[in-house]
């Protein structure tokens, strides 16, 4: 029996029972459409979280001085003085997986502009800090290397600081503010970055040359941290290892000694958050998958009835020379045709529903090619799986009994 015959017979059978075929398809349509939509929503929210994290500097690596031990007492991280400008120079020279790097010394204090004051933090950095943290200057300029070299008393302020110090929202550029009584000239205003996923205000900062913060505010020579960006998010973990090796070597630590520094990447956090949204996706897809399963059972049910109704036809086909395999394939083709047609319609409906969700509810959605491939594959397999049993039953019929079936 030829494939074309199988298709023609199946098409005819479906054409003769349009309503029944459509109702059966409906199960598959709903199943496939919901799988596609759910996956699109899941992928969309994952992508949006990822984008948000990348905006924070997902490939950012932070080096902190280590919790050294002094006489058996573990010291507070920030009190250690093991991270120096030499480390910064060594890393700059040797690290291959790092693109931008900046030292960071920060101090908390009160920023004052005339009658307005605001408690905030000042971060002593180099110009590269912008790239590492993915910040942009909205107005004015960033501190430059000359400012760093001469420990210039210039600052770039974040939006929160600006709004609190300049209540009339006047142009801050060129104005002088004081931080812990030391005057700084505002040369730039950062673009707003909003809150982090954890609710930390990223606009509540003042950036100054690290030399200025070291000398004029803290009176220290060591660094509180070094921030760097890995070449990409993928190599972030390797960059951490690379930095660890470089620093251990330059700090001349023997194998037994603990690190006298700590390196953090954002990777862990990203993993945690992505896995949460991944779980959500799995949950959504599981629910959608169940509806696909129900659709499959619908196919089985209808095929079972169809085989019963057409017992005599099966008997006749056998008498005319149809082999068991011909009968099996005939009913299987019918089942698969129902499920594939349902699948194609389901994909279309799913794409439409995704569009509606994106437009009407403004949810982030992302249709992935694999979701379409998977749902199509799954509904085909559903058709074969649930069509098999009834088809097998038809093929196993005894021609004599089938012919005499009333």
């Amino acid at each position: 029996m030829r494939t074309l015959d199988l298709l023609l017979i199946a098409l005819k059978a479906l054409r003769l029972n349009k309503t029944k075929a459509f109702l059966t398809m409906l199960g598959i349509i709903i199943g496939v459409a919901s799988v596609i939509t759910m996956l699109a929503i899941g992928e969309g929210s994952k992508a949006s979280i990822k984008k948000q994290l990348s905006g924070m500097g997902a490939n950012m690596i932070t080096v902190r001085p280590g919790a050294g031990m002094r006489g058996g007492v573990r010291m507070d991280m920030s009190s250690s003085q093991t991270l120096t400008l030499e480390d910064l120079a060594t890393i700059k020279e040797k690290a291959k997986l790092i693109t931008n790097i900046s030292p960071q010394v920060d101090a908390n204090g009160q920023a004052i502009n005339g009658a307005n004051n605001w408690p905030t933090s000042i971060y002593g950095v180099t110009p590269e800090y912008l790239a590492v943290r993915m910040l942009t200057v909205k107005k004015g300029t960033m501190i430059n290397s000359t400012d760093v070299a001469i420990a210039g008393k210039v600052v770039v302020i974040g939006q929160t600081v600006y709004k609190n110090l300049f209540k009339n929202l006047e142009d801050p550029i060129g104005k002088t503010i004081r931080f812990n009584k030391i005057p700084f000239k505002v040369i730039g205003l950062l673009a707003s970055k909003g809150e982090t996923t954890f609710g930390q205000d990223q606009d509540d900062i003042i950036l100054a040359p690290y030399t200025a913060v070291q000398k004029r505010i803290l009176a220290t020579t060591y660094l509180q941290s070094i921030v760097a960006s890995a070449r990409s998010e993928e190599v972030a973990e390797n960059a951490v290892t690379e930095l660890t090796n470089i620093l251990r070597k330059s700090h001349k630590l023997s194998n037994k000694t603990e690190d006298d520094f700590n390196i953090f990447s954002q990777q862990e956090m990203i993993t945690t958050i992505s896995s949460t949204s991944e779980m959500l996706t799995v949950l959504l897809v599981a629910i959608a998958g169940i509806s696909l399963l129900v659709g499959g059972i619908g196919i089985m049910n209808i095929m079972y009835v169809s085989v019963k109704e057409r017992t005599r036809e099966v008997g006749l086909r056998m008498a005319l020379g149809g082999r068991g395999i011909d009968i099996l394939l005939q009913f299987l083709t019918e089942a698969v045709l129902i499920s594939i047609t349902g699948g194609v319609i389901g994909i279309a409906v799913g794409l439409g529903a995704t569009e509606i969700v994106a437009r009407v509810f403004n949810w982030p959605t992302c249709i992935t090619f694999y979701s379409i491939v998977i749902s199509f594959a799954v509904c085909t397999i559903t058709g074969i799986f649930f069509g098999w049993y009834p088809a097998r039953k038809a093929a196993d019929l005894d021609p004599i009994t089938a012919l005499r079936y009333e």
Partner: protein
Amino acid sequence: MEKSIIHIENLKRDFIMGEETVHALKGISFSIQKGEFVTIMGTSGSGKSTLLNILGCLDRASSGLYEIDQVPVKNLSRNELAKIRNEKIGFIFQSYNLLPRTTALENVELSLVYNKAVPFRERKIRAAEALKSVGLETRMHHTPNQLSGGQQQRVAIARSLVNDPVLILSDEATGNLDTRTSYEIMALFQDLNSKGKTIAFVTHEPDIARFSKRTILLKDGHIIRDTPVENPGNAAQALKLLPKEE
């Protein structure tokens, strides 16, 4: 020796019903030669349906020999039996067994669908020819519910002819038809037989059997009579003698 289409020797068929064994056929032997027109008669329970199923390769004998067109059937697989049914046997049933909502042409084609030797394009042509040979050339695109019983049976006969089988096997083909239509069908059978078709015709109506050339009478699983029909009737003439329809 002439070529036998059917050759049966000491054929037995037992059915096991729970504890009991029913001997439906208790060792029968006969042959049908090419060009014969045989009626197999018997009351219900005589084993004639069982014999028909075996002749049609739908069932297998418990013991004994059965050869169709010189092929012993005994050790053939299910698929090989299906091939024999397709190529060597044309079935005609009492209840026509046409697919509903399917045209006469498509119904006739059904036999060809399972015959790999017939190319796709040739099917329609062959099916149309078969329908023409039973006088239904004007009804090719009618579905069974648009056809009378006699016409439906003609479609079934066309279907049985289309693969050019060595044997046409008819199971009470006139059982559902009135006398006039029965005679028409018998005339068709006689015509086919005169063109060389071998026909085995199961019936319980002696009135119909007289149009064949030989009668095999079964009773309780035995052949009790196997005789040529003396002066076989001519169905076409008998038809003319029937009183005119009102």
